């Protein structure tokens, strides 16, 4: 019995307990509201949505946008992070700009993005890329800054060019930090895709949740939220696996 409280099982049991509590508050009529369906009916709707394939379709559109934006941010963030971390010139050139733009919450750009990019994917990808860019940039930068001078000088004494030093020494040294940035941005990407889809979209999981609410399909709305929880968890698990594989030392 004692073992139970020191294993993961206790956490799983808590979740089961809370779900049961949800179910009972509805079946025993403690909470009576059309906005609060029983958990069993939420799961039923969830099952239907999965079987019909609708959920995957919505999810597909969302993940496509998210990874487009995330990929652009990762490439640019790592590139400029390396540049700013290694070359003082680029640091002095770009740091003030970064500090001005970084504190602005990305959703503030939504109106501008709509003006210039319309209501379609471009706008959403732009917003996701912007939001996920900064954590990747800053973590890459700080990863580069903490590379030991001895490692860099080792490259120099063996005759590496400065480009080779960046590629063969700075980059692998900074990889653990880069991954930290990438992982933070993964969560932010998911947030941004939902926001942008709630603002303007005709598909995607954010759109689906909002639409379910507007059409009073309340259990679908909850199912959509659960889906986001599941996908967020899954992405993180995959990410951690990948990270362990790449940062294996």
């Amino acid at each position, binding site marked *: 019995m004692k073992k139970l409280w020191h294993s993961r099982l206790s956490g799983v049991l808590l979740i089961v307990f809370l779900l049961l509590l949800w179910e009972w508050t509805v079946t025993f009529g403690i909470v009576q509201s059309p906005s609060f369906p029983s958990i069993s009916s939420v799961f039923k709707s969830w099952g239907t949505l999965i079987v019909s394939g609708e959920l995957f379709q919505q999810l597909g559109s969302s993940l496509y946008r998210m990874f487009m934006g995330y990929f652009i941010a990762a490439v640019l963030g790592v590139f400029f992070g390396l540049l700013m971390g290694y070359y003082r010139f680029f640091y002095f050139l770009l740091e003030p700009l970064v500090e001005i733009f970084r504190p602005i919450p990305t959703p503030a750009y939504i109106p501008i993005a709509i003006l210039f990019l319309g209501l379609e994917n471009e706008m959403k990808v732009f917003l996701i890329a912007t939001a996920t860019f900064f954590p990747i940039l800053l973590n890459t930068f700080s990863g580069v800054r903490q590379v*030991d001078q*001895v*490692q860099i*000088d*080792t*490259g*120099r*004494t*063996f*005759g*590496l060019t400065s480009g*080779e030093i960046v590629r*063969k*020494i700075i980059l*692998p040294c900074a*990889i653990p930090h880069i991954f930290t940035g990438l992982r933070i941005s993964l969560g932010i990407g998911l947030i941004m895709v939902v926001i942008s889809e709630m603002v303007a979209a005709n598909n995607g999981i954010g759109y689906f949740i909002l639409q379910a609410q507007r059409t009073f399909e309340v259990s679908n709305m909850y199912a959509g939220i659960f889906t986001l929880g599941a996908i967020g968890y899954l992405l993180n698990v995959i990410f951690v696996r990948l990270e362990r594989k790449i940062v*294996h*030392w």
Partner: protein
Amino acid sequence: MADNYIQVNSVSKHFGVGEARKMILNKISFPIEKGSFVSIIGPSGCGKSTMLQIIAGLQEAAEGEVILGNKKVDAPPFDMVYLFQQYNKSIFPWKTVKENVKFGMESRKKWSKSEIEQRSNEMIELVGLYDCRDYYTHQLSGGMQQRVAIARALACEPDVLLMDEPFSAVDAMTRGSLQDLVLDLWTKLGLTILFVTHDIDEAVYLSSRVIVLNRAPRNLAADVSIDLPYPRERLTTPEMPNFLKYRHQLYEEIFDAEKRGNSEEIMA
């Protein structure tokens, strides 16, 4: 002036500014002949590593210059490798022992892939790490890590090898065999070696010349030619009367230098 391959010309170096400004090297000059094995000894903090890194083109001198061949050193020269005193920071944690050793050779672009493969294996064998060749560096002891750094530097056969306390972390037995390995390669390849050590016996055993450094302002305390025949023999060389004579002389020089240094510091 026979074959002055490396010429250190009144090199000065200080660290810090204002109140904290500290003179480390003060107009120090000496030549290094091609193919010589020169050991540098001197008290901790007197500027040996700084000197070697200036020669290696890794640090800039405040004044003076280093000439290699007949070119001023203003960047790390292609055929010179500096072996860091901080061996554990100098090897790459994301590479295995073998990948680390290959790194030096790959960056020289002098050998084919298969040559690199073969030579790295040989070198790893020679420093006694063959069984650990696929380990990552955090799986190695300090002495093993140091041997990785040594193997990496030796494998790429630079004309000039600057070794900064390369055997500080290995046990006495291993140290002996590494000394003979370095001597062997030095003879075979005609390298020029600058070798920092705190061990006088090691300096005499290996070198054709020993430079004794001191703290600034007077850095150059002594410069002794070691006229012992090569190849040096582990058992017989240290028993030669001349070996004992040099050993004696160097001990005296170092203690003298220390005393002089202290009194000069008091006067200053």
